[in-house]
C-alpha cells in the first residue's frame, strides 16, 4: 500500500468563515497505481492534490492523516514537509507553461535546484529521460521562452520526476494542451510509471474521457467529499453514483449530431462549501433523491474495490 489517506480535512480560512474544501476524504492507493481524480471545478480536486505536497497560505490542515510508504506526511507543517517534497512526493503543476524561471537556462536551473536539495545531477540519466519524452538534449542550453508549450510541459514532467518520487501529483496537466499533445503527455506519464520513475500517480483532471484511458482507478469527488471510487472500466461502464452517471452523460459522443439533441449537462451547481448542507451534498441536484438522503451516506464497498457514497446505489 503506497498511499493511505484517512479522513483528511483541509479548510480554507476566509473572512466569512472556513470553506470546507476537503471534508473527510479517505482512500488508499496501491504501488504502481494511477488514480484519476475527477469532478467539477470547486469540488476539491486541486485542494486534495495541493494538500499532499504543498498547501498554500490560506489552507489549514484541520484533521486526518496521510501516510506514504508507511511514514506519515506532516502535511500541515510546511518546513518538515520539505524533506518529503521532490524526493517522496512530487508535482507536475497546472501551470507548467510558466513553471520554469524565465531568466535561467533550463540545464542550469535543474542543476541549481538539485544542488539545493543536496542531490547531484546525473547528466546521462537526465538525457535518457529527455529522449524518452522526445526532447532534444539541446533544450538544456535553452531558456524556457525558446520552447513550445508542449515542450515545456514535457520538460517539467522530466524535472519533477528526476528524484524518482514515490507519489506524483499531475494537476490538470493536459488542460492547456491540444488533443494530440494531450495523448502524448498521457502516454509519457504511463511510460514514467512503467519505467519505475514514479511508484504511483494521482492524475487530477476534469476530463473523464482522458482519465479513463490512462488511470487504473478513478475517483470522483463532489463538494469536498468522495462520491465514487472504482476501477476505471467499472466507472465508465457501470457507474453507481448518480453524480458519476450524470457526469458521463454530459460527455459528447462521437457520431451524434448535437444540433438536433442538446447536450445534457447537470442542472444546478455545487453547493457553497462555506456552509455545506447536511446530508448528501448532491441531494439538491440529484434526480433520484429521497427521504434517506437527508442523512449523510457512508462510503460503502458494494463490489470488490468499488466504493460508492450513495443510499440508492
Amino acid at each position: 500500500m503506497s498511499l493511505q489517506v484517512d479522513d483528511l480535512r483541509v479548510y480554507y480560512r476566509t473572512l466569512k468563515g472556513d470553506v470546507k474544501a476537503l471534508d473527510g476524504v479517505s482512500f488508499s492507493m496501491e504501488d504502481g497505481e494511477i488514480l484519476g481524480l475527477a469532478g467539477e471545478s470547486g469540488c476539491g480536486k486541486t485542494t486534495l492534490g495541493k494538500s499532499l505536497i504543498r498547501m498554500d497560505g490560506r489552507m489549514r490542515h484541520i484533521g486526518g492523516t496521510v501516510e506514504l510508504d508507511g511514514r506519515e506526511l506532516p502535511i500541515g507543517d510546511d518546513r518538515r514537509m520539505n524533506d518529503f517534497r521532490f524526493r517522496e512526493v512530487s508535482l507536475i503543476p497546472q501551470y507548467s507553461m510558466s513553471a520554469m524561471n524565465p531568466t535561467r537556462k533550463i540545464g542550469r536551473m535543474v542543476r541549481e535546484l538539485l544542488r539545493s536539495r543536496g542531490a547531484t545531477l546525473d547528466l546521462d540519466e537526465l538525457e535518457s529521460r529527455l529522449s524518452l519524452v522526445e526532447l532534444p538534449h539541446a533544450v538544456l542550453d535553452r531558456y524556457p521562452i525558446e520552447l513550445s508549450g508542449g515542450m515545456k510541459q514535457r520538460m517539467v514532467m522530466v524535472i519533477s520526476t528526476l528524484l524518482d518520487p514515490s507519489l506524483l501529483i499531475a494537476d490538470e496537466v493536459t488542460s492547456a494542451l491540444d488533443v494530440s499533445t494531450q495523448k502524448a503527455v498521457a502516454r509519457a506519464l504511463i511510460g514514467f510509471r512503467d519505467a519505475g520513475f514514479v511508484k504511483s500517480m494521482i492524475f487530477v483532471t476534469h476530463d473523464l474521457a482522458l482519465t479513463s484511458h490512462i488511470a487504473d482507478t478513478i475517483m470522483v469527488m463532489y463538494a469536498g467529499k468522495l462520491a465514487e471510487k472504482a476501477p476505471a472500466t467499472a466507472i465508465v461502464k457501470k457507474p453507481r453514483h448518480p453524480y458519476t452517471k450524470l457526469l458521463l452523460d454530459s460527455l459528447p459522443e462521437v457520431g451524434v449530431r448535437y444540433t438536433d439533441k442538446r447536450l445534457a449537462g447537470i442542472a444546478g451547481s455545487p453547493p457553497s462549501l462555506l456552509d455545506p448542507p447536511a446530508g448528501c451534498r448532491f441531494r439538491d441536484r440529484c434526480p433520484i433523491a429521497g427521504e434517506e438522503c437527508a442523512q449523510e451516506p457512508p462510503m460503502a464497498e458494494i463490489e470488490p474495490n468499488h466504493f460508492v457514497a450513495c443510499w440508492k446505489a
Partner: protein
Amino acid sequence: MRRYFGRKLLVYGLTFFVAVTVNWMIPRFMPGDPVSSMVARTGASNPAAAETMRVYYTNLFGFDQPLWKQYVNFWAALFQGDFGISIWVFPTPVSEVILGAVPYTLGLMIPSVLLSWVVGNWFGAYAARRKVLDNTLLPVGYVLTAMPYMWLAVLLAWGLGVVAGWFPVAGGYSFSMQPSWSWDFILDLLHHWVLPFSSLFLVALGGWAIGMRNMIIYELESDYSNYLAALGAPQRLIRRYAFRNAVLPQITGLALQLGVLVAGALVTEIVFSYPGLGSLILKAIQNQDFFLLQGAFLFIVLGVLIANFIIDIVYVVVDPRTRAGMAGAAA
C-alpha cells in the same frame, strides 16, 4: 543584435536632434532682450554710445542674422565644439564655464543615483515578506519618496547645517580655499558634498526600496516560485531567482527616472548653492544668458541620452529574453 542597436542609435539620434532644436528655440523665444540688459549694465547714458554697443553685441552674437541662419550657424558651431560665448561671464567661452561645473554635478549625481538604486533594491528585497521590516521601515520609504527634493534639502540644511552645525550649508568648498589637489581641500570638498548627496540619496532610496519590495512580492507569487517551493527548494534559492527577475523592471525604471533625477539634482544644487550645472542654469536664466543656458541643457540632454544607452546595453546583457528575441527563437 546589430539591427537592434542600429535602431536604438537612430532613435537616440532623433531625440538628440529634437532636444537640441527645442533647446535652441527656448531662450530665443523667451521674453526679454539680453543685449539691452548688457548695454544697460554698462550704464552708458549717451544714446549714440549705447547704440554703438548694441550694434556691436548684436553683431557679435549673430542676432542680426535671420533666425534660420542663426539656427544653421548654431549646428555648425556645435559640431566644432563651439557653444558660443557666455553673456553672464563675458567673454568666457560657454564650454569653459560648463566644464568647470560638470564635475560637481557628476560627483553628486553618479554616486547618489547608483548608491540609492543598489541600496534601495537590496533593502526592498530584504524587507519584502518580512513582517516587522515591512510594517516599520517601508512607511518611512513612502514618506521619503513623496518628499520633494528641495524640501528635504532645506530640512537637512536647516537641521544638520544650521541647528546642529555639523555641515556647511552652501557652496562646493569653503570660500577661504583655492581648488587644489591637497588633502585639506578634498576633505573640505567632501564635507560640503555630504548634505546635497544625502538629500538626493534619501529621496531616491525610498522609491527604489518600495518598487523592489512590490516586485519581489510579485515574483514570489509567480508560478516558477511556487513550483520551486513545491519541489522543496530552500527559500534562499527562490529569493535569489526572484531578486534576479525583479531587478529587470528596476533597470527600466532607472532609465525612466533619470530625467527626474537630473531635475532633482539641479534643484538641490540651487538649494545648497552647489557650483554645478543647476546653479549655472539659474544664473543663466537670471542673466538671460542664451548661450550658457543652451550649453547647459545640451550637456544634460547628452548625459541623459548616454546614460539611457548604457542602460539599454546592460538590459540586453542581463535579460536573456531580449537576446533570444534578437537572435530569433530556435524551434
